[in-house]
């Protein structure tokens, strides 16, 4: 019988005790692993948030945002100036267009409307009265029904014109955005659900990306064509923005949109990516200086920062919980091993008396400890697999309730129009990251990655080895007769 066989045999010597020891170990290890997994999951999400939207600054014309406000448009020179600011890793220009259904526009015109020339206007960024340049006709019909919010918003915007006749429910305008890279109007990478991207975003092209719901509404698929201002465009890809509002949109390349608007050097907004989260504040100030406070408004996802920092605190909490759970697991294993070895002092004395070297005794008890720890870890991993997603989502949901009001506020209209949300065209221009962020927050779910489990189990085994080795060797060092004589 070898040392190994003896150790395994000893581990199962007392089955009730072995079962109890394994159960206690499993709970402790499972808890530690669950915390580690939760910590990793939250950490990964924080990193992802930081990487995607946390470092993004949005530059809008001073006094204007989306289709609201006024002031002078941004220019491509300003984009070049922005790119020259230190720590800026990318500048993506966007050019927003408002598309109206051609049939409907014609019908409205026939009804005696003055077209899009209503006061105050939807196309605020082009300066007062300049909205005509950015409002175009299309063959597309919006995927979102106007509903109560849409009608109310458009009335308040004056687009229903001077006629006192109540217009029947009409479809909403569609926002077409020219983009200088494959990102949406908030700087997040576009999720292409079908087809391909637009390739070179800095050249004019007759390809376009449509939101999934918009394409469905208009019975369009990859390769289908539609028109903007009577010019045909081909659907190159479908994207999924994750929201109904986000999917009721068209993306074309930046030069295409600029050409359609007739303003080749103008930009509606710039999405500036900073190289790291630490540099965001300083870069924001530098950017504001470089562009001039009277020319541009630089905004940052303030509320997102709060979300990230509260996620960060969850990460810290779960890390502390992991350390505490691991320390507890370690202590339990240590004490159990000390007890097991202590219980068998006499056996150690006998082995010593018949000539067992200390290392053989140490090895025997370490192997025995490893057998118990292996069983405990296996059971603990199963517990962790079930518990970790629950624990992680509990941690995240607590967090997201605190960020939801912030997100809603972020989506509010510059003009103070109540309601917020997707029903208001252009409302999401500056504030959309928050909607995305809250979605990310709620979707954090922990999955037990093999490396994490392996690291946790290795720590557990290390503690088990020490817990068995130290008391075994301490006992083995005593004169055999002291041990054999008993207490």
């Amino acid at each position, binding site marked *: 019988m070898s040392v190994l066989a003896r150790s395994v045999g000893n581990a199962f010597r007392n089955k009730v005790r072995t079962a109890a020891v394994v159960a206690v170990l499993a709970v402790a290890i499972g808890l530690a692993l669950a915390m580690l997994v939760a910590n990793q999951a939250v950490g990964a999400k924080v990193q992802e948030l930081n990487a995607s939207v946390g470092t993004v600054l949005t530059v809008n014309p001073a006094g204007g945002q989306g289709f609201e406000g006024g002031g002078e448009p941004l220019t491509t020179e300003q984009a070049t100036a922005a790119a020259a600011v230190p720590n800026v890793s990318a500048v993506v220009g966007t050019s927003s267009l408002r598309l109206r259904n051609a049939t409907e526009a014609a019908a409205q015109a026939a009804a005696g409307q003055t077209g899009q020339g209503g006061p105050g206007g939807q196309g605020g960024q082009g300066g007062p009265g300049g909205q005509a340049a950015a409002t175009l006709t299309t063959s597309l019909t919006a995927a979102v029904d106007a509903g109560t919010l849409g009608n109310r918003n458009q009335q308040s915007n004056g687009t229903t014109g001077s006629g006192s006749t109540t217009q029947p429910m009409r479809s909403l305008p569609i926002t077409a955005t020219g983009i200088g890279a494959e990102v949406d109007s908030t700087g997040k990478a576009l999720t292409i659900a079908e087809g391909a991207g637009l390739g070179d975003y800095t050249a004019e092209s007759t390809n376009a990306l449509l939101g999934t719901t918009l394409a469905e509404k208009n019975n369009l698929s990859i390769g289908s064509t539609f028109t903007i201002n009577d010019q045909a465009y081909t659907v190159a890809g479908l994207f999924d923005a994750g929201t109904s509002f986000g999917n009721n949109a068209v993306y074309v390349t930046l030069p295409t949109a600029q050409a359609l608007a007739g303003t080749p050097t103008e930009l509606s907004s710039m999405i500036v990516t900073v190289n790291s989260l630490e540099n965001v504040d300083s870069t924001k100030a530098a950017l504001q200086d470089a562009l001039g406070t009277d020319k541009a408004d630089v905004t940052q996802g303030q509320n997102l920062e709060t979300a990230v920092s509260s996620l960060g605190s969850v990460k810290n909490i779960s890390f502390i919980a992991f350390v505490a759970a691991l320390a507890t697991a370690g202590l339990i294993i240590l004490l159990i091993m000390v007890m097991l070895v202590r219980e068998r002092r006499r056996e150690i004395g006998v082995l010593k008396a018949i*000539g067992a*070297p200390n290392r053989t005794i140490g090895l025997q008890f370490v192997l025995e400890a490893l057998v118990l720890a292996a069983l405990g870890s296996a059971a603990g991993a199963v517990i962790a697999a079930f518990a970790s997603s629950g624990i992680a989502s509990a941690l995240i949901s607590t967090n997201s309730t605190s960020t939801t009001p912030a997100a809603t506020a972020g989506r509010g209209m510059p003009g103070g129009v109540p309601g917020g949300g997707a029903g208001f065209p252009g409302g999401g221009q500056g504030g959309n990251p928050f909607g995305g962020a809250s979605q990310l927050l709620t979707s954090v779910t922990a999955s037990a990655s093999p490396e994490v489990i392996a690291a946790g189990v290795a720590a557990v085994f290390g503690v088990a080895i020490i817990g068995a080795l130290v008391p075994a060797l301490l006992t083995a060092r005593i004169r055999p007769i002291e041990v054999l004589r008993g207490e």
Partner: protein
Amino acid sequence: MIEVKNLVRTFNSGDRTIKPVNDVSFVLEQGTLASIVGKSGSGKSTLLSLLGALDKPTSGDVVVNGVSLAGMPDAKLTEYRRRDIGFVFQQFNLIPNLSAVDNVMLPMEFAGMRKAARQQRAKDLLEQVQLVQDKHDRRINRLSGGEQQRVAIARALANEPKLILADEPTGNLDEQTGDHIISLLSALSRDHNTTILVVTHDRALANKTDRRFRLQQGKLTEEPVRPRAAVPVTA
């Protein structure tokens, strides 16, 4: 040859100091079968554990074949116990969850003997101490006291030690098996030149030894013995 020189072992019991072994000296030639008799608590077991390097003397020395145990480091003492000593304990001290064969194999495993060889030798030794074959693979805690005693003796013989120290080796055995064990020990000392020191209350055993010592209040005295009678060996 084993030389014991002015061996003293003291224990502190509260504020009293007791001396179970007090200035003991004797010399045993290799191959001698000797016995120590004495009352319970006279220090016989303590003396035996000092000789077997299970304990360290307060003063004095044990010299085995010219090597002093007093100055030996622990690792060397372990090796001495493994290679040169066979110990039969009063309470057997077998590993309860191992089989008889596994228990006998343990010292050979520590000595690095190959598995097949030690298994064969373990079975032979168990045969020698008359443990029936179907009990060889039985766990120790399923064996009777007498059977455990025989397994303990077989384990003591495992590494062919030069010195066997036995604490009441026949105490738990019936007369017949006890006689057999005595014959076996006697034959070992004669045929294998093994020195055997037995602590016993058993007059029959004590009378068959070459030399007989009496331990009284820590002091050792030798008693005269008749010339050793030939003991028939049945194994």
